[in-house]
């Protein structure tokens, strides 16, 4: 954990050389450690449940980030892959009694395979055509989930008959002692964060971003764009598949209904998370997922205090939609992008101040990695 947060700070330092270690590392480390205290800080089980949801969303969003944020490919099949992971886990758990420790990689791999299978034809196109082909595949998969009744039990979906209670030596329970389940989910949320971080730092990640930034240029430089898009899609599918296991455990069931991973609702929801969080930032999807889950909890009571009074969901949605539009128009890089800009300005001012004081540039200023 420490290493990860240090490296985060390192990346930020590199992007904004005049940053002071204390002003960036400490707040970031605190922010990243805060979720560890959630069971103690959150006043109700309902909110802890929401924190679990946020952690699951975060894994899914981080996966989408690899293909949409990094590689720039607008996949509309991502949440369906999440569902594929959940179905795989449910089938293996119900019919073959696989343990959790085996379900997680199995779900991840099956979703990754599904992603690659969709990607092989879909990446022959680009742009909006790609988006709509992935959407078409998502719709077909949903139709299959509803109609291949022998396998999927149709619209009723699959239910875990005996809820899981342990992974290896760690025991967890989803009703009375949520803490352990929360920490388990959180651990994977951190892993997913570390995953997107490591990918971003690697040659692979740089290649993804090169594709996003300028596909023709990337090709001219010898990058196999098709292959790397497939890799990105497969990786994103893996993340989604893993998250599928936690979704299954949290709900104890998976079905292809209108508020399931197979719904267009979630597809849009997750795109919005990344956009609001910041599509060009590593922490963007994390920020977006937390906002998506907790913002209504904060906004509702706050607005309740104003003359607007108790807001209907419709009005909340209107506010949410308007916020999105305004975000795109005035802060197209999302919350994280804004924060970076503000921080960059602050750091630059700090630097100027120091220079005037006659001090040398602080350590890290020239630290290019």
């Amino acid at each position, binding site marked *: 954990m420490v290493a990860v947060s240090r490296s985060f700070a390192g990346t930020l330092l590199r992007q904004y050389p005049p940053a002071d270690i204390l002003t960036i590392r400490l707040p970031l480390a605190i922010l990243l450690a805060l979720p560890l205290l959630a069971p103690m800080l959150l006043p109700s089980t309902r909110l802890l449940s929401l924190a679990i949801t946020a952690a699951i969303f975060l894994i899914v969003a981080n996966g989408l980030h690899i293909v949409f944020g990094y590689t720039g490919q607008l996949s509309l099949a991502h949440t369906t892959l999440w569902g594929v992971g959940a179905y795989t886990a449910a089938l293996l758990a119900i019919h073959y009694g696989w343990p959790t420790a085996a379900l997680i990689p199995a779900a991840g791999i099956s979703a990754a395979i599904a992603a690659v299978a969709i990607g092989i034809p879909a990446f022959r*196109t680009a742009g909006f055509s790609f988006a709509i082909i992935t959407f078409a595949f998502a719709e077909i998969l949903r139709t299959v989930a509803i109609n291949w009744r022998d396998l999927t039990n149709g619209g009723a979906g699959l239910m875990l008959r005996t809820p899981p209670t342990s992974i290896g030596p760690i025991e967890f329970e989803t009703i009375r002692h949520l803490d352990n389940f929360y920490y388990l989910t959180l651990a994977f949320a951190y892993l997913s964060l570390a995953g997107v971080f490591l990918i971003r730092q690697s040659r692979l990640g740089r290649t993804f971003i090169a594709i996003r930034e300028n596909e023709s240029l990337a090709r001219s430089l010898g990058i196999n764009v098709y292959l790397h898009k497939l890799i990105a899609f497969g990786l994103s599918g893996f993340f989604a598949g893993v998250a599928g296991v936690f979704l299954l455990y949290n709900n104890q069931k998976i079905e292809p209904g209108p508020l399931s991973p197979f719904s267009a609702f979630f597809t849009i929801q997750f795109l919005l998370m990344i956009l609001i969080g910041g599509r060009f930032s590593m922490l963007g999807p994390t920020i977006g997922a937390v906002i998506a889950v907790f913002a209504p909890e904060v906004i509702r009571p706050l607005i309740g205090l104003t003359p607007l009074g108790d807001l209907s969901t419709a009005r909340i949605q209107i506010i949410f939609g308007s916020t999105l539009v305004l975000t795109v128009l005035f802060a197209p890089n999302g919350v994280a992008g804004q924060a970076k800009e503000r921080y960059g300005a602050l750091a630059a001012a700090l630097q100027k101040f120091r220079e005037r004081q006659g001090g040398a540039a602080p350590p890290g200023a020239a630290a290019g990695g």
Partner: protein
Amino acid sequence: MSQELSVFMQQLFNALTISGVYALVALGITVIFGLTGIVKFSIGELLTLGAFLTFAFWEGGTTFFLAVPLAAIAVGGFSLLLERGAFRFTLDQPINGFIVSLGLILVLQNLIIEIWGVGFKAPIRPFTQVWEVGGVSMPVQRWFVVWVAVVIIGLLFMVLRYTKYGRAMRACAEDRDAAALMGIPVALVIAGTFALGGALAATAGGLLASLFAIQPFLGSQYLLKGFAVALVGGLGNVEGAVIAAVLVGLTETMGSGYLATEWRDAYTFGLLIAILLVRPRGLFPARGRLQETLQ
């Protein structure tokens, strides 16, 4: 007529009506895309708005035949406002325009719920007769929808081909910078096209209000089909959209009529995937610099 034939004719007629509606939505999407590269997903909500406004005008005592154009004008104007207020800031980044339209879906859909509630509205039926010809039941209302769609599509072609605005629009679609150099008021043309796209969707909505019961979530279904049609036809290509609308309408109707109905959406989307794999830019790719850079 043999029974098989009359059933087939019936299905053909069924397909025709729905194709007309799809064509109008797809045209709305396609003209805006052809010009700006923005995929305006919120057009589905403009359709819903058109349907509910038509209903509101009709409820207020206007005849249906006046209510639809009124709704179209109102939604066209609204769409113009949206372009001025939001979309024009995203012209250099079409994906941002797409995202703005996603946000607008939430805003508009819930605005409609706020105003009209979540319930459904029964269809307005200016024509209640049903013609029976050789075992084929043809509600006059459906014929009316077909003909209105045909007339509007015809008018649109004429406008695009023969009017100054149409030529300006095609020039802008071909190359916006060059058009600006030639003295075409590009901003005005784009704003006008947003109004046109909105009005087309609203007309589709108004016509739907005369065929089916409407509810605030009407838009998404038609948006997806309209979008599929626009893609199959070649985004930005007006003629392609019309042909593709008939193709998709036929696939859907014949699929439901003769094969297992529950897989209907799989037929449509399977067709879409197949076509886009063979022809990634649709059956009739639009020409123009924009299309080449975007697709």
